[in-house]
């Protein structure tokens, strides 16, 4: 099968899976108890108020009519209006998404690079102290509970030592100052980004390091590594040019999917660091039955992950000529 037919087949698969996800999401949200209006414990909301709101939002329609509207709206690019923000969900997502990508995608890329590099090195020193300690460190990092370590870092680096701002994405005092220029504002955002970035980097690096290390350990048992050594290549050349590129394959899958999932942000990380990303919105939308916002966010994430899967498949064929579709 050539690349063209692979693309066609996978695109059809993606469409089918996406359709299933769309329907599943709709059913799940509507099966969940409570609707966005009746969930409000607000004594000023009378049952008549609730009925009126439910009718105005179209939530009193039979479920299949709601479903048809949902499908129609999706294909006409209308993702609806958030019940709580009163704004188009597309506007909210496009406002929050760049923040999430800035933090989480950067963290994933940096962590993958560091993890791959460290994994490659320490696999070469298997059984030595450096391997043992680095592996232990990676395991610890990988199992750290993110909100806990985030709070600890905030307390130590931001509160105690005072190197970083406590949370958020910008210092309001700088942003409301008319004299502050673009550079000062850009620096301010970077300054706010460092601590969450560092936290995510530390936690994520461990997993990439472990994947790369174990992949390297498998690869160095291969005959072509022995051949490379027999040819008289230096250890560094064997490691960097022969072992590492081949060991990269499993890491590519992991990094590819992590990059795709990074658009999901992280509800807990974003909450602890008050980072205005999509993860917090997702949690808010789900817990407050803000259907349009929640469903559009999930659909967006599903689409990115499905497309990332396809890209990883193509990348596989490119990285490993033995693989053909």
């Amino acid at each position, binding site marked *: 099968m050539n690349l063209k037919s692979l693309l066609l087949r996978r695109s059809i698969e993606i469409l089918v899976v996406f359709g299933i996800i769309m329907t599943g999401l709709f059913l799940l949200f509507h099966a969940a108890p409570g609707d966005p209006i009746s969930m409000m414990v607000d004594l000023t909301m009378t049952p008549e108020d609730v009925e009126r709101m439910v009718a105005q939002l179209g939530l009193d329609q039979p479920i299949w009519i709601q479903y048809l509207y949902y499908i129609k709206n999706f294909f006409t690019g209308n993702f609806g209006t958030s019940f709580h923000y009163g*704004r188009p969900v597309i506007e909210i997502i496009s406002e929050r998404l760049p923040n999430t990508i800035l933090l989480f995608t950067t963290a994933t890329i940096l962590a993958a690079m560091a993890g791959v590099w460290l994994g490659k090195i320490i696999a070469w020193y298997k059984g030595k102290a450096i391997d043992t300690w680095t592996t232990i460190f990676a395991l610890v990092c990988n199992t750290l509970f993110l909100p806990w370590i985030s709070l600890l870092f*905030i307390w130590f680096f931001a509160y105690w030592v005072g190197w970083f701002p406590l949370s958020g994405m910008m210092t309001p*005092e700088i942003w409301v100052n008319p004299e502050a220029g673009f550079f000062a504002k850009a620096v301010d955002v970077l300054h706010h980004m460092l601590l969450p970035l560092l936290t995510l980097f530390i936690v994520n690096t461990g997993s990439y390091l472990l994947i790369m290390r174990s992949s390297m350990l498998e690869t160095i048992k291969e005959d072509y590594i022995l051949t490379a050594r027999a040819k008289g290549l230096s250890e560094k050349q064997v490691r960097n040019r022969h072992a590492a590129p081949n060991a990269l394959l499993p890491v590519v899958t992991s990094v590819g999917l992590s990059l795709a999932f990074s658009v999901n942000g992280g509800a807990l990380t974003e909450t602890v660091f008050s980072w205005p990303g999509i993860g917090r919105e997702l949690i808010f939308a789900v817990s407050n039955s803000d259907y349009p916002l929640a469903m559009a966010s999930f659909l967006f994430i599903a689409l990115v992950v499905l497309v990332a899967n396809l890209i990883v498949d193509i990348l596989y064929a490119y990285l490993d000529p033995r693989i053909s579709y």
Partner: protein
Amino acid sequence: MKVFFLFSDFYRKTIAASFLLALCFVLASCSNGEKDGAILRIGMIEEPRTLNIWLASDANSRKVISLIYQPLYTYDPDTLDLAPWLAQSMPEYDPETISYTVQLRPAKWSDGTEVTAHDVVFTVDLIKDFQVPRYYSQWQFVKKTVAIDEKTVRFYLAEPRAIFLTRTLVNYIVPKSQWAPIAEKAKTMANPLIALMNARVEKPLGSGPYVLAQWREGAFLHLVKNDHFFGSGIEISNRKLGPHADAILFKIYGTADVGVLALKKDTIDFFWWSIQPGYIEDLEKDENTKVYLSDRSALYYMGFNVRKPPFSDPAFRRAANTVIDKNFIIERVLQGYAARMDSIVPSENLFWYEEHLPRYGQGLSRDDRIKKAHRLLSENGYTWETAPVNRSGEVVTPSRILLPDGRPMDDFTILTPPADYDPARATCGVIIQEWLKDLGIPASARPMSFGALLQRIKDRHDFDTFILGYGQLALDPDYLRSFFHSANNRPGGWNMSGYSNPEFDRLADESVQAMDPRIRQELIRKMQQVVMEDVPYIPLYNPAAIEAVGEKRFTGWEQMIDGIGNIWSICRVKSTEADM
């Protein structure tokens, strides 16, 4: 191979980027030094969702809105009586025409135009035309609103309604100039109410002490002093109003932990959020922070489904009330930062609170509670194979209770919100379950998601007992009627227990029309007596509002019921730097 080399190139770029980041970090550290003494910095736990007054339902949105839009009357911080705010004086009531006449004080909108009676008429008409949820029920009995002149407005009521003064007149007034075009456009849409609620008002025109200057969504809100604020320099309720801070910055902290750190680090002057008691000790050690403990108008309670036996039996409910040790809950679960509740109306609401109520089990030891509850149940036909109190008068482990018809009582559940939503209520469920088991009552606490919980209790009436709470009850106790009037015993209605008592209904109906506050006070107090005799709800506790401020830059916070986060504080706090 190529890809791998590309990665190597990435490494080099990463090192360069790291240097750049480090440089930025140093520069940012330097630029953080500037501070404006006249900016009041307030921390919030979450960002407001909207500043559209008709849509806003979350507490944070309403906090910001309360500084922009203003009502005709507000509550005096000392007495909790009505105090004229946008109004010049107290309203004049004419029983003949069932009308109230209100005189407006000289006041302007933030664009410099006059606040007139036409704005008031427009606001009322808009609420009624669109039947705006939350507001409509408070205005629907107002038959007609007329602007007598530019500064005088008269409200004609369809029938006498006591809540008109204490609930209706404390609602916000919006400017006609800004909202009329929005309302006109909304009326042409398929769903006018939704169109109104979703209308985006970039710069809301207000009559309050501050106006919105900038809202950087996801990051902060910047409010600046409203130069046209009617209260500037005048005295209301014996308080000379400012505001004194030039601007307010609302900063968002996702968790209370970080908010408290921000306070200690002097990044904010006030964290507008009721914090957990666990922070108090730490904050009190810090010489720059001050903790305020305030009474709240809140109610946390256990409710019964009185539609089904044995919960329909008042004796059973009284026995359950007797065995519940509220003081234990307050001391152990809430670390002492709550007030015991023996009525549905908080005792801090002095004017309406009824003091002479049965205090089931108060002051008794655990054994004495069991004995008293046992006696109550025995007298009403409940039996046991092994009673909780044996013939020698000792408390023993009982067998399952037998109902008056001789059947053993079925297992039942105490529904509570989950621990991550409210650990106190979830813990109370478990503790109460154990106390009830001391009487052989087979209870089991069951935390469930809040949505599912409400649906079962409020919409489907499919429950036995539950523990819920209202964090901010209105000061007017009309909620008694909502909770217990039989007319509200319907799916989605607020009489979730299904309580029905003709005497209570009569008192409640009378209280609605009692225009004389003293007569209404008497009725409201009687209503509390009736309810607490029947105990469809067991009031448990009223948690304290625990708030903290940084004292370095601003002083003069006004403490009233529900805390220091109120319009009086915002109008009164002064910069300490200005004093120097």
